[in-house]
């Protein structure tokens, strides 16, 4: 059985307490610092009378404080509800309510902090505001806010709930993926194994920790005793590249748009990236020319193309870099402990070459969707996770992704449910009906398009629609294109034909 995260962190701290664990802006937290800060959080929760099994929500950007809170919540025997810091107050409030969180620990400088605090108070959720110091005083500030650091962590069992990640759903029905301690431990161990992560590694993370990919990058580095550099904004890719050079970074992970941004405006050969040992890419298919360019510009770094989903903690498969040329376009084979099949609608496994739904089983598959047994039953059946992705295997067992069986838009690496965007637009009084679909986007892979039928005699304008969406949705969910029509294309049975909207 894999080592659970708390124990893995403690092991890393015992082996090398002074080694830097998390580096963010002008602050550096060692493993000993991190364990002690996490213990402070656990103690505060215990002092507040929070019982084990309670959910504790976190709303903060990537920072050492987030990491300390995360491990502190686990140490208190509670589960982390990692809120998406890009979301707006209304969505956050609904997720908070749905999770039944007892306490929200939130960055007091977050743009949604004040409105969310009011909404949390209405729900009876206690709020603990914290400051994210980013200089040499960050730890004393944290200690002031959280107090004593005697370590007394509650032992966790593999099947215990460790984390809830809210993924794309409708606004009225949030979808919280339940990840257990065992899930995290198994996926962390599998990823460390194929990447060969060790305590000498220095990873640079631009991915948000509250999503599964960033979450896995965080835990794998801590369990390996490595150093993780947080770069919380990718708007200036050359600043990131300079940091990679100056810090002799050995590992970097991104989604296709990360690499499109990196290669789009920067000349990688202008930087000394010779320390870069590996690059990982997940979060959707990356165009082959981009893969080729990345390999040409970074010939010494091994490129891992990977596939996974939140419901599988993070990772399901990876393509060994040694097979990249031979199997370009494939997402490889299952990670250790995972089994993957391609099946037809009746659940029969399909032979190589035939396209069907991808299903997976293994110790990393989620416990289910929080407080939604119906949605859980739809995807967890007969011991398998039905991914909703379409794919096929070749004769050697390499997996290829061919699309999605479930309607979902992928903007960058973010899954967006068309229904969620439709619900928000439909709330405008002058909208008769609306349908949302994906359109191709050079940088992000897909972008969102909304087609709206206004009520008779009413006029709407594009800015008004986008402003309304921006007020109620995360920025990446705002449609890039808004069009008006007199009717929507439908099948004879009345179902909207989204593919005709693009």
């Amino acid at each position, binding site marked *: 059985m894999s080592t659970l995260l708390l124990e893995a962190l403690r092991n890393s701290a015992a082996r090398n307490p002074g080694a830097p664990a998390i580096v963010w802006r002008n602050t550096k937290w060692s493993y000993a610092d991190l364990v002690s800060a996490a213990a402070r959080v656990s103690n505060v929760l215990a002092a507040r009378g929070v019982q084990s099994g309670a959910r504790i929500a976190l709303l903060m950007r990537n920072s050492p404080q987030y990491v300390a809170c995360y491990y502190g919540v686990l140490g208190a025997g509670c589960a982390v509800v990692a809120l998406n810091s890009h979301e707006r107050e209304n969505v956050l409030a609904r997720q908070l309510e749905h999770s039944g969180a007892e306490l929200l620990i939130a960055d007091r400088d977050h743009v949604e902090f004040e409105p969310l605090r009011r909404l949390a108070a209405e729900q009876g959720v206690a709020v603990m505001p914290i400051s994210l110091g980013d200089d040499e005083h960050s730890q004393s500030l944290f200690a002031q806010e959280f107090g004593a650091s005697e370590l007394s962590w509650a032992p966790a069992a593999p099947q215990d709930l460790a984390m809830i990640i809210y993924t794309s759903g409708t606004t009225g029905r949030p979808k919280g993926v339940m990840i257990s301690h065992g899930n995290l431990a198994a996926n962390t161990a599998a990823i460390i194994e194929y990447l060969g992560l060790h305590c000498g590694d220095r990873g640079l993370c631009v991915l948000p920790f509250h999503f599964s990919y960033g979450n896995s990058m965080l835990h794998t580095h801590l369990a390996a005793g490595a150093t993780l550099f947080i770069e919380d*904004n990718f*708007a*200036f890719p*050359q600043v990131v590249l300079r940091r990679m050079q100056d810090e002799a970074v050995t590992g970097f992970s991104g989604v296709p*748009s990360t690499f499109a941004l990196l290669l789009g*405006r920067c000349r990688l050969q*202008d930087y000394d990236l010779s320390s870069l040992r590996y690059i990982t890419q997940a979060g959707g298919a990356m165009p082959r020319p981009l893969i080729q360019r990345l390999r040409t510009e970074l010939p010494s770094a091994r490129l891992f193309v990977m596939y996974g989903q939140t419901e599988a903690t993070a990772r399901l498969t990876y393509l060994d870099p040694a097979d990249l040329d031979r199997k370009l376009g494939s997402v490889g084979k299952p990670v250790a402990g995972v089994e993957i099949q391609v099946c037809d609608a009746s659940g029969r496994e399909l032979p190589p070459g035939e396209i069907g739904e991808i299903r997976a089983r293994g110790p990393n598959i989620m416990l289910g969707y929080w407080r939604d047994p119906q949605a859980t039953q739809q995807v967890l059946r007969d011991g398998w996770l039905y991914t909703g992705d379409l794919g096929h295997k070749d004769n050697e067992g390499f997996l290829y992704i061919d699309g999605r069986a479930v309607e979902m838009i992928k903007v960058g690496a973010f899954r967006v449910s068309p229904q969620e965007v439709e619900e928000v637009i439909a709330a405008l009084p002058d909208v008769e009906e609306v349908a949302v679909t994906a359109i191709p986007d050079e*940088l992000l892979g897909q972008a969102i398009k909304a087609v709206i039928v206004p009520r008779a005699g009413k006029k709407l304008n594009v800015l008004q629609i986008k*402003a309304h969406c921006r007020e109620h949705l995360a*920025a990446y969910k705002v449609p890039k294109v808004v069009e008006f029509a007199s009717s929507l294309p439908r099948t004879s049975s009345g179902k909207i034909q989204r593919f005709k909207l693009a």
Partner: protein
Amino acid sequence: MADDLREQIRAFILENYLFTSDPDALGLDDSLLGRGIVDSTGMLEIIFFIEEQLGVKVKDEEMIPDNLDSVNKITNFVLSKRQAA
């Protein structure tokens, strides 16, 4: 001229990221990233806007927050580039 440029830049950001024409929605020194107004792809679009609409080439090494993270910073950057040209 600087004022016209400033308002042109502000109007572009208001229309494309805040979806309004109300100038009060965006202070001239507001951090575009700090306020969550633009993300990484938005910043790339702003750079395209500077190059295509304002006729100023942005070099790799010039893509830094000091040049691009507010209306005033972008205005000053564009003016200094035009003067140097």
